[in-house]
């Protein structure tokens, strides 16, 4: 039992409630939100260290032991995800505090932001399937609010579609939960590790597997269920798109990593080959979608889809190195994708548009921004010595070891196309002659600092990949041994 496990959820919740009360005073709200975020970041880092030193951490609510009560189970993957979530959300919050309109800030931006974090962290930490559903709803409802923030006609229309798609996937999620509960009588993930294999004979396991793949495929924007994403992420203010692009789909990917390694891969022969195909198709079609776009934000949104394919590639190959590579990729992607969106937001702030045809010469006006974009863009494409290179190297190597040559070839081609796409943005937005409409908005140093801190982290992970490697290797080892994980959780009551 460790109360540290629940703090990443409790701190944003308490802060969110407090921020509702102070919503009319943006300066106060900013101070509270940023300090609370830094506090949660500290807690998350402490959690990572605790898990590294003492192994899996548990918290059974109301002291009801698993499988009877709800438990939070924190292994290395959960702790790392929470930590990286807090890193990017702090940077985004810092950026938002100097770039959002006063009107939007007063319109409950800060409370919604904290509730979103509460949902994301809850989803990463929980060890109960129904509880996972509830956290998904918490983060989705906050994201609906953030997506419609500003109430432009386009936003309302796209938020409506986003909401319908997610409500449908939540309904499917509940059907899956009902099937699992009806068949096994438990929803605790640790208990399911031992009870789920019994469903193979009746064929029930296959049905449940497919339902959950569809549910998390929609949430994580996998082929062919990603079509909702690019239009939805274009609508909200760019800072908010940055947070969504970094975090939201990754919760779906995390849920896939968790459920596939715990129940689905050990019990079914079709999951991993299917995921291999899905990974290849997702990365290829995502990047092709990006190539056809002429808008900074839309290009980045399509790249989210494409990048999710790489993470799933790590899961699909399913060796210790591949899973470690996949987890490394998730962490790298959250940092880099958010920083790219923040560059787009900073450019939009200065020139008033994200349309590449209208932009130009941003490198003259803000050379630092151009440099940051160059580093982040190269990291996204996987150029050494940035974090993307380490992640892609691990994935490619594991792919070659597993003799999965087609997927490796596809992922290399997609890397080049990603590089082309980043060069296109650079050429049209940062080179050429500077457009005349320069809007000088205060707060540029803070915005640049927020982006620079994320890009620096990407550089650190690139040069010092060995720093993070022990952590992702622990995470991968824990994922590949579900029975050990389940035993630890279930036997906690004896202590």
């Amino acid at each position, binding site marked *: 039992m460790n109360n540290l496990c629940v703090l990443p959820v409790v701190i944003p919740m308490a802060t969110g409630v407090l921020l509702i009360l102070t919503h009319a005073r943006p300066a106060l709200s900013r101070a509270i939100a940023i300090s609370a975020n830094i506090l949660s970041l500290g807690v998350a880092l402490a959690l990572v260290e605790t898990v590294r030193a003492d192994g899996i951490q548990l918290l059974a609510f109301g002291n009801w032991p698993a499988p009877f009560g709800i438990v939070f189970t924190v292994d290395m993957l959960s702790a790392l995800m929470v930590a990286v979530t807090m890193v990017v959300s702090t940077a985004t919050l810092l950026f938002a505090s100097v770039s959002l309109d006063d009107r939007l800030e007063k319109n409950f931006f800060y409370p919604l932001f904290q509730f979103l974090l509460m949902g994301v962290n809850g989803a990463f930490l929980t060890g109960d399937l129904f509880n996972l559903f509830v956290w998904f709803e918490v983060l989705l*409802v906050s994201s*609906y609010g953030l997506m419609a923030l500003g109430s432009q006609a386009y936003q309302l229309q796209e938020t409506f579609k986003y909401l319908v798609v997610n409500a449908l996937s939540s309904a499917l999620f509940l*059907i899956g939960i009902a099937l699992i509960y*009806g068949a096994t009588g438990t929803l605790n993930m640790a208990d399911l590790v031992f009870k789920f294999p019994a469903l193979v004979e009746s064929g029930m396991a296959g049905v449940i597997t497919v339902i959950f793949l569809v549910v998390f495929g929609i949430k994580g924007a996998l082929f062919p269920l990603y079509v909702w994403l690019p239009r939805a992420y274009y609508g909200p203010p760019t800072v908010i798109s940055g947070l969504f692009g970094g975090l939201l789909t990754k919760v779906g990917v995390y849920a896939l990593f968790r459920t596939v390694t715990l129940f689905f891969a050990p019990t079914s022969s079709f999951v991993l080959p299917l995921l291999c195909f899905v990974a290849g198709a997702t990365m290829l079609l995502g990047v092709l979608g990006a190539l056809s776009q002429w808008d900074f934000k839309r290009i980045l949104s399509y790249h989210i889809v494409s990048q999710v394919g790489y993470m799933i590639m790590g899961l699909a190959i399913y060796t210790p190195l591949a899973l470690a590579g996949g987890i490394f990729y998730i962490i790298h992607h959250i940092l880099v994708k958010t920083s790219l969106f923040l560059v787009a937001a900073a450019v939009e702030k200065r020139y008033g548009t994200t349309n590449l045809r209208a932009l130009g010469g941003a490198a003259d006006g803000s050379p630092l921004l151009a440099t940051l974009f160059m580093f982040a863009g190269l990291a996204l494409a996987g150029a050494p010595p940035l974090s993307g290179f380490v992640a892609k190297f691990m994935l490619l190597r594991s792919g070659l070891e597993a003799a999965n040559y087609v997927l490796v070839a596809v992922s290399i081609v997609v890397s080049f196309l990603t590089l082309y796409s980043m060069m296109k943005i650079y050429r049209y937005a940062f080179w050429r002659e500077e457009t005349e409409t320069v809007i000088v908005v205060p707060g540029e140093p803070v915005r640049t600092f927020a982006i620079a801190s994320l890009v620096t982290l990407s550089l650190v992970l690139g040069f010092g990949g060995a720093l993070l490697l022990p952590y992702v290797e622990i995470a991968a080892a824990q994922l590949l041994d579900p029975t050990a994980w389940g035993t630890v959780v279930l036997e906690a009551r004896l202590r």
Partner: protein
Amino acid sequence: MHFAVLTVIAVFITCGVYLLLDRTLLRIIIGLGLLSNGVNLALLASGGLGAGAAPILGQGNATIVDPLPQALILTAIVIGFGVTALLLTLAFASYQSQLSDDLEDLHGRLDDE
């Protein structure tokens, strides 16, 4: 009993999906409502549909019903209610700004590509 509940679930979900495929915002919302009710019934069925007493200890009842699905449904209903309220607000705001609640009619109006 099982067959009857199964039929009701099937009808709810079928009607829900049919309405969801419509182009009118309001019908989509009604469809989602039906769909989530069908799903809630499925959750209820997952606990078994046998007869049993209320799950209270110390009453001397030999068979009691499983209370967990009921707790799950309660949560799902509350979430569904909140989401439906949000959907209605969005649909109304969208109608006010566009003066149409037909997605076909709205299509392409707001594309800036």
